[in-house]
């Protein structure tokens, strides 16, 4: 569904993406994992066409992305930080999005709008919303058009436990509908039950892209965090980051 071929991207001196190739298919939930600045968001943004890669190709459903924006109608994107026009009301935003895609109210998936209770605050202007509520708006928007591909950048960051659970449930539902879902998160426990595949990035390089069950078998661990730690430690390279994560967890 998404095919990435030898993508390179440099920001001034920093090599953000270093010769990354991957294939993502329908029905997969890919967890993009890696330390801060490892290129996760840059990879997502290249898929969305927000960042233009220096070299390499990206194909969506066999069609190369080059300027024609129509492929994005199949993608639902939830950004890390969602900011919206200050004076726009929530209801307005959703109406605008429908307008852009020329869809009527019956064509859309308002499930999250209902579950997050956003309908009741449709009149509220965006500037009065808290960070968490904005995050909910972003989430509801990503799922709104029932896209075949979902790209979620740190979806649960800033959400309260209840909302986070609602969102995870929604992701599970979509997974069953045989969609392709890409998630980045630092909260590995959130990804545990969702993930089918893990893509691990470090310093712009893809360390591995593997099936979670294969990984579990290889390592003999069950939890995603431990799986990753084991893989990294066995490879004996760059295991620092995951060690730190686990050390912090155990000290909690």
């Amino acid at each position, binding site marked *: 569904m998404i095919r990435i071929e030898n993508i390179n991207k440099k*920001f001034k001196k920093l090599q953000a993406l270093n010769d990354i190739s991957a294939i993502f298919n329908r029905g997969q939930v890919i967890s993009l994992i890696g330390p801060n600045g490892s290129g996760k968001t840059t990879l997502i943004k290249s898929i969305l066409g927000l960042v233009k890669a220096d070299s390499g190709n990206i194909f969506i459903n066999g069609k190369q992305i080059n*300027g024609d924006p129509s492929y*994005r109608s199949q993608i639902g994107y939830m*950004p890390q930080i969602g*900011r919206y*026009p200050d004076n726009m009301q929530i209801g*307005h935003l959703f109406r605008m*999005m429908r307008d*852009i895609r020329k869809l009527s109210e019956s064509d859309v998936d308002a499930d999250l709008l209902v579950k997050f209770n956003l309908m009741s605050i449709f009149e509220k202007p965006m500037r009065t919303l808290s960070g968490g509520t904005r995050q909910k708006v972003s989430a509801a928007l990503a799922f709104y058009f029932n896209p075949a591909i979902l790209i979620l950048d740190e979806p649960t960051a800033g959400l309260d436990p209840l909302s986070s659970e609602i969102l995870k449930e929604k992701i599970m539902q979509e997974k069953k509908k045989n969609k392709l879902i890409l998630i980045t998160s630092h909260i590995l426990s959130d990804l545990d039950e969702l993930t089918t595949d893990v893509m691990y990035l470090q310093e712009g390089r893809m360390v591995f892209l593997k099936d979670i069950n294969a990984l579990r078998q290889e390592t003999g661990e069950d939890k995603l965090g431990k799986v990753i730690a084991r893989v990294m430690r066995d490879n004996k390279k760059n295991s620092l980051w995951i060690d730190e994560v686990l050390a912090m967890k155990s000290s909690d």
Partner: protein
Amino acid sequence: MLKLTRYVLYDILRSKIVIAYTLFLFVVSFGFFQLEENQSKAVLSLLNIVLIVVPLISMIFTTIHYYNSYEFIELMLSQPLSRTRILLSEFTGVSLSLISGFLIGVGVPVLFFSFNSIGISLLLAGVALTLIFTSLAFLASVKSRDKARGIGMALLLWFYFALIYDGLVLLILFSFSDYPTEKLTLVLSAFNPIDLGRIFIMLQMDVSALMGYTGALYKEFFGSGNGILFTVGIMFLWIILPMFAAAKIFKNKDL
């Protein structure tokens, strides 16, 4: 495109800045017409305000608006919309709101007190300057990612066109005063939209004495009819070219 513009426009009109701008212009214009006995003198005073304030506000408002809607633009870009279309919608929204502010603030008093060719050309020049400086501001803000730098660049551009440029022209003319510099002056003034705006209105009035040096030469060289055509043409280029460059940069930009 209009769909998106509608929402941009709606958002801007709900912020109070454009309303404050409109009120300010209205009070100033109304004041000038009340204070001056002679209406064309009042228009002249108003002209000087318009030539300074309209470009300044257009530039600052546009850059601030651009940086404030940065995330929103990013969101739009993740939708099936082309980059050029998004930028042009933003441009249309911002310039429409500024133009309507100007037309209400200055236009209404002018309609009441000085509804003649001079008044109309003042309004036209104001609209053209709004478009030109909005377009320039988009170029400045698209070029730099950093907000402070973008606004700084916009301010510098304004400073350059409003103040420094005339000084430079005078300096050139003064140092080459032994040579025939008329044609050079004409060419030079085409490079400053504020000058062009002034000339555009001055050509309507018969006040050569009050014109800047560039303006006086302009009239002598062109006579009114051609001069207007020429200024309008150049101003049009001033609107199109920066926006064209901005769209080109924006197309290949990483967000």
